[in-house]
């Protein structure tokens, strides 16, 4: 009977079971895909697209290529050891005249000015003094006369270095590196080498804020998870309350509280604890206070959800087996909250890495984080290349952390640590 049943089930097709299963599942998969499609399209448009654009901006080098096309083409064969030959000078003169007519010279001037300070002046003075195309064979002499910089190898090396189509210039600059006249990677001049410090500072501030949030958030999350439902819901509203207020308002509230004549200083002086106002804001302390306050809910919520899943029976069991409260906490409770600690810390750390408004408002000059410089280059100086390079490095650092976290969580799951 069993045999008959099996043959009748197998007989109609010779298609392997796996393929038949796939076919049967296909309708469900299509339906699932249709459900996430709108979000996918939205993310593609608003998230992945801009990120890809940003990454491209970090290496894109189009300005000189577009404004001085003939010069770029001629310099392609230049070995860079001596000054380029007459052909290059002639091409440059043609390009400059054409660019002046088109009004695009400033674009190239700005880009070249990043590479060599003062390049803008060289280009504009040349354009101003070059009335007509030089006689054939005299371009080198004419340009050299207008501006002696054209007799310098570095000037030409800068044009060749900026001739694209892609460049490592911005990414190197974001790491305080640059190429010298021979194309070797060297440390950037000290007055431009600020980004490594900014990176280190960004990570130190983010890490400190994460630790502060963990220290302050853990007991609150524990309380929320162990109180009876009614009271814990009330407390939860207080945790979530900041989400209903704008970030700007919260940060400004800290200015009111912490400034020299603010509520905190006045109260301390009134109580006679201090004589002169303490400096609580526009320094690192203010940044820590305000950022910790803003990011605290992002620590508390993951902690709370991991703690809520821990049955009180575990602590009772530990006590009945002879563990004093502290031992039971350290050996039974704490290890089970590790996924929550990891999730909350990662969330807070990554959010803190990108903080801009809060440090900009309550920090001093030496407390500005990476986002401040990214904003500076996009909105003030319109140096999109450098802004994108800084953003790209921040993104890479964040992704690395994300991967690390994924490994951590996965390791836990393999060993059954997340399971009950």
């Amino acid at each position, binding site marked *: 009977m069993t045999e008959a049943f099996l043959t009748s089930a197998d007989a109609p097709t010779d298609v392997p079971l796996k393929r038949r299963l796939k076919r049967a599942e296909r309708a469900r998969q299509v339906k699932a895909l249709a459900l996430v499609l709108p979000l996918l399209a939205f993310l593609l448009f608003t998230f992945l697209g801009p990120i890809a654009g940003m990454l491209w901006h970090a290496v894109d080098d189009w300005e000189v290529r577009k404004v001085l096309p003939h010069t770029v083409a001629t310099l392609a064969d230049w070995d860079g050891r001596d000054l380029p030959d007459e052909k290059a000078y002639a091409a440059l003169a043609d390009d400059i005249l054409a660019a002046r007519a088109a009004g695009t010279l400033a674009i190239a001037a700005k880009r070249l000015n990043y590479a060599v300070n003062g390049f803008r002046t060289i280009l504009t003075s040349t354009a101003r003094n070059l009335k007509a195309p030089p006689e054939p064979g005299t371009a080198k002499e004419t340009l050299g006369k207008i501006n002696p910089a054209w007799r310098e190898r570095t000037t030409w090396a800068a044009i060749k270095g900026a001739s694209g189509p892609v460049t490592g210039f911005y990414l190197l600059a974001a790491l305080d590196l640059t190429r010298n006249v021979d194309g070797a990677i060297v440390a950037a001049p000290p007055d431009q080498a600020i980004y490594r410090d900014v990176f280190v500072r960004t990570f130190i501030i983010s890490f400190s804020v994460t630790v502060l949030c963990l220290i302050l958030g853990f007991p609150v999350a524990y309380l929320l998870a162990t109180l009876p439902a009614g009271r814990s819901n009330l407390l939860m509203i207080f945790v979530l309350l900041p989400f209903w207020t704008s970030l700007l308002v919260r940060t400004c509230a800290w200015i009111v509280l912490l400034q020299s004549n603010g509520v905190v200083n006045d109260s301390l002086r009134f109580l006679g604890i201090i004589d002169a106002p303490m400096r609580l804001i526009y320094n690192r302390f203010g940044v820590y206070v305000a950022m910790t306050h803003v990011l605290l809910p992002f620590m508390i919520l993951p902690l709370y959800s991991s703690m809520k899943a821990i049955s009180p029976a575990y602590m009772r*069991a530990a*006590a009945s*087996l002879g563990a004093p409260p502290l031992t039971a906490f350290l050996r039974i409770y704490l290890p089970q909250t590790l996924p929550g600690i990891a999730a909350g810390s990662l969330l807070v750390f990554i959010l803190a890495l990108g903080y801009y408004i809060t440090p900009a408002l309550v920090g001093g000059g030496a407390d500005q984080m990476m986002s401040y410089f990214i904003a500076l280059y996009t909105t003030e100086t319109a140096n999109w290349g450098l802004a994108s390079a800084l953003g790209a490095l921040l993104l890479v650092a964040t992704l690395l952390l994300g991967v690390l976290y994924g490994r951590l969580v996965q390791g836990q799951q393999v060993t059954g*640590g997340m*399971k009950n």
Partner: protein
Amino acid sequence: MEGAMIAAAPALVRFSGIQKTYDGEHLVVKNLDLDIRKGEFITLLGPSGSGKTTTLMMLAGFEVPTHGEIYLADRPIKNMPPHKRDIGMVFQNYALFPHLTIEENVAFPLSVRKVNKAEAQERVRAALRMIKMEALAQRRPGQLSGGQQQRVALARALVFNPQIVLMDEPLGALDKRLREQMQLEIKQLHETMGITVVYVTHDQSEALTMSDRIAVFNDGIVQQIDRPDALYEHPVNSFVAHFVGENNVLAGTVETIEQGYCRVALASGGTIMARAVNVASSGATTSLSVRPERISIIMDGATSEGPNRLPATVQSTIYLGDHTLAVLEVAGNEEFMVKLQPGEHHSLRQGENVSVTFRPEDCLALDPV
């Protein structure tokens, strides 16, 4: 109460005048006096909300009595924290630590007691051997079945040789077959190790199977403490008779009481001779209790001996494999059950008029329901 008489033997645990209230308005446990002797298997049996679990939690140290004192080996322990009581506990949902292996779980009570490593390892291995789970020592609780988890919880509660082991409905989450198997295993462990076990359940058959003594709880009061057979044969009141085992109830009024027996007039007419267990005086109302297996069915016209014979109408018969249950209408009770032996009265038809008879000593006159 018979329990009180036996309690002359030295007690390991003594509950003395224990009261417990959670809301300050009504008592969950009312004036509990209970002695637990060394080495015995005592079950706290009762419906939910009867105070049995609260009693267990007070002994474990997770609840503090509102009034009274608990003595463990003659030391008051009311204010002793749970981890110092040296009482092992098995929870309903096992409460195995999910982030530790089976071996680490069982070793936990030894490691918090700072038992040296070699000895701890030996004891853990012995405990795992006892529950036949040595092969699974490196697994995590999430990878085990319910029955296996419960065995590990048992091993963990026993490995540090506690003075008492408490079990809070430990088999409640298991299916019937596994539950019966575990009942026997726990009973065996108790007998071979000589440990004192306090067991909480609402399942009366589990209590009858495993216990040396059973304390029946209802409404915060211990109704009766006794050996399983005594509890079944000699319940002191209607609640115990009803809660432990199957039971038929007939309502009536006491006419006369003499020499431990009483004559009871049934509300539907007819009189019954019954053992006077819990009746006040003649004229009082009473509930008569008869076990289904102590009743015989007599076909119409046949004769019988003894004073108790009541007319009955067959409602239905239920075949249960090892026996058949006949449901009859007797003296107004439409669910009067009679347990038939195999091969007996297979010809009963629905609506047939028969008679039931039982001996006076098998019919108990108890307090009215």
